[in-house]
């Protein structure tokens, strides 16, 4: 494995990769006797697209849940922006600037696209509950500010035509896009995507890839994603972590990972004799 330098550098296509944004140090996660994650360490650097891949049951989603604060690791430390993160509730993590999408879409089915995306702004709302209920001036002003931010994302994701449509009526690909929109509405520093292309057709995958690259490029958002489609992962990501049975078996650029014997074994299978 190559040593990773911590100096900011500029990639071939002109993006700046900064210092370490998040670092996982010797994370172990146990559910009773089951060890989901075993002593894994890696880092996510500012401005990069970091992929976590692995076969089914490798512990990828658990890892994402550790990052998003849904699970507290049994052992090990999570460092965010140079500080050790104490055990936190997910909403506290969200406030720190980490937003996510889900493997199975978790939108409010009966609400419109716009309302769903407005919920992404919830961590940025300051006016009190009575102020919002009574629609005071401060709440109105705040609402229009947040609406403006959401509209910029609507424009960015090209979903103007479904602005007022209840999400439950939308096709799968668009729902995924709305979910990405909701995560973006939180203006995250770190965006976690749990299988953003699962169940999509080629065209939808292409669209989604373009949006992920554009988000990274236009907003400078750091992205960590889990994905099964190897083609997509290799094209999109700057660095890849490979997991298998809760262990890290590879870490590096897509090319390095592709040549790693352990990774090949994990994906193609080896004969156990």
């Amino acid at each position, binding site marked *: 494995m190559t040593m990773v330098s911590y100096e900011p550098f500029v990639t071939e296509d002109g993006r700046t990769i900064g210092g370490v944004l998040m670092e996982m140090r010797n994370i172990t996660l146990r559910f009773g006797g089951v060890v989901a994650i075993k002593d894994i360490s890696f880092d996510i650097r500012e401005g990069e697209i970091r992929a976590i891949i692995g076969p089914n049951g490798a512990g990828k989603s658990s890892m994402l849940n550790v990052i998003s604060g849904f699970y507290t690791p049994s052992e090990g430390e999570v460092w965010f922006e140079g500080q050790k993160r104490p055990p936190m509730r997910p909403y506290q993590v969200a406030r720190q600037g980490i937003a996510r999408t889900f493997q199975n879409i978790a939108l409010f089915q009966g609400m419109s696209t716009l309302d769903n995306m407005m919920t992404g702004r919830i961590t940025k709302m300051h006016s009190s509950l009575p102020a919002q209920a009574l629609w005071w001036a401060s709440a109105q002003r705040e609402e229009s500010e947040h609406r403006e931010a959401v509209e910029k994302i609507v*424009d960015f994701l090209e979903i103007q035509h479904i602005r007022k449509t209840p999400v439950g009526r939308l096709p799968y690909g668009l729902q995924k896009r709305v979910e990405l929109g909701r995560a973006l509405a939180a203006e995250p520093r770190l965006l976690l995507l749990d299988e953003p292309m699962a169940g999509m057709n080629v065209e939808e995958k292409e669209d989604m890839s373009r949006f992920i690259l*554009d988000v990274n490029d236009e907003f400078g958002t750091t992205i960590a994603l889990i994905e099964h489609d190897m083609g997509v992962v290799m094209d999109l990501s700057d660095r890849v972590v490979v997991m298998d049975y809760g262990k890290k078996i590879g870490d590096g650029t897509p090319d390095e990972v592709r040549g790693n014997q352990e990774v090949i074994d994990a994906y193609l299978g080896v004969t156990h004799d």
Partner: protein
Amino acid sequence: MTPHSASPDELCSIPALLARNAQVFSDRPAYREKEFGIWQCWTWAEAADEIRAMAMGLLALGLQRGEYVAIIGRNRPAHYWSMVAVQMCGAVPVPLYQDAVAEEMAYVLDHCGARFVVCGDQEQVDKVIEVQDRIHHIEHVLYNDKRGMRKYDHTHLNWLKDIEEEGRAGHFRLGPELDRRIAELAWDSTCVMLYTSGTTGKPKGVVLSNRNIIETSRASVEFDKLGPDEEVLAYLPMAWVGDFIFSIGQAMYAGFCVNCPESPDTMMTDLREIGPTYFFAPPRIFETMLTNVMIRMEDAGDLKHGLFHHFMEFAKTTGETYGMPKLRKQQSTPTLRRRWRSIFRYAMGIGFAVETLVENAVRLFFIKLRHPVKARDHFSARGPIFNLYPQPLRDYFDYRTGDVLVYGPLKNTLGLSRIRVAYTAGEAIGPEIFDFYRSLGINLKQLYGQTEASVFITQQPNGEVRSDTVGVPSPGVEVKIAESGEVFYRSPGVFVEYYKNPESTASTKDAEGWVATGDAGFFEEGTGHLRIIDRAKDVGKMADGSLFAPKYVENKLKFYPDILEAVVFGNGREMCTAFINIDLSAVGNWAERNNIAYASYQELAGHPRVLETIQAHVEEVNLSVAEDPILSGCQIHRFLVLHKELDADDGELTRTRKVRRNVIAEKFGELVDALYDGSTSVYTETEVTYEDGRKGSIKATLEIRDAKVGDPQHKRQVAA
């Protein structure tokens, strides 16, 4: 031709009209665009300021007089502004179809020799960059939407806003030069160059002068009494002459507001929000709207369903009389008399409502009692009971009731409640579709036009509207029919020339200024309305010498909602045959209601029950064609339903969605052969082009069906 004359107000160019509007209508809305969910508005004064800044920016980049500047993008204010800004600099704007693939674009860019290209967004810039290695004269590319453009090499690439800033900064230096160039614009300087869609062969660049555009705009604005408070929605391709006339020519002349939709997908929502008063749409749009309404009515509850059908049936006969919007009249202050009249009208209305209620109560009582089983048939068959009101008054009040319950809400949903004048053109519109909108009280009319005529050749005046004619010659236009049946016209709007193509110019326009339309038609006896049969060159002879007019039959077929497109063959052959394209939304909905499962367009198109339905349509058309003594030879003997939708990306349709007959005949040659060799099915493989330019192929075995043919009427007469 009219002798060279200066316009009375010296308003002989679009920039001059803009200057007038900025003065006269300074704080009235000129352009609106929905962005970030809100309608952004620019007044005439603001728009004039933006355009001037843009023009100075273009000067700073070195735009020369007489140059051609390509503009590629969807309808957005900035793109319209860039056209006017280009004109200010003495150059000529050339709008291109934005959905054209790079290959098609390359020809036009090469032909017009543009040094400057204004692009809407990254997609268009990419296409221009793709062709740049073949077309070396492109020097500057400007773009309007910044998205995704950050990483591009900006040595010859500029953001439109930056150019404007530069223009503003250098206004002391550039202003006088710009004013000089604006002052040079005259009646005969070129206003715009528009490329024809190219039904056959390569597109041709039609050069239109200021005289063409402004005279035509003036005549048509006066014809329909359009005023500065009109609202239009600009959603048709900018490269199409109609959009140029409506959104620039007429808008500038009359000073009305042009509204640009948020994105192509939101057109229907935006239409509803704006509620245009003046509207133009090709028949296809009206068809789609009607199909959607019908589909949704099928799913509606019994009450709504019943009300809708009852009142639509009623409106068929009365809509024309009671529904049409009032013509614009000078509004005076309300007089006492008028007030009394309105009170009287309300009283009559209330009386009518009471009568109707009582009448219905009486009917319910007697009819339900006597004929409990057949109450339904007896209910309306008896006619009015009390008959206190004369029939026209009953109809008037009934129509008003329908307006409140059905027509009004429906028009509102469609976004057509404020329409004063709507036009349709480009293709023939189905009589049922046309009558549907007319009976709702929408003043939908037909016009017949061409790029070469700056749109208007004939149009229908208010009160003389019918679905089967295209109206009388527009003001200032002379129309004649040649021996061959081809329609010729002469007008102030007649184009100057085809760019770099004197042979075509000469063969289209003669020395006296008469232009051949390429369409065959005739004037109807008595009314003086023009009727178009078909493209003159498509009109041919069958093997037995009878007339072959494919479009005539195709239009009849296309009037069925199930049929999206039809292509009829038969020139020089002994019988007519047809390719048919089903309409996925209409047939798909029908399939859903009838529990027919299908996985793809191809499977649905090949379903036996779909074929049966289509066969029934074809046979009905044959019957109606058989009634026409001249065209009875065009009945369809055999047909097949195509396995793919005809598409402009595959070159089968033009960008304005007209059928390219020759291309289709060539591409599906084996299918045409199969139609004539008597086989009952045929296997085929077709290449398709996806939207991103990649190619694939689809395979299918198509069933060929025979359709019953009616006896030609004239032969029957001979026999009898």
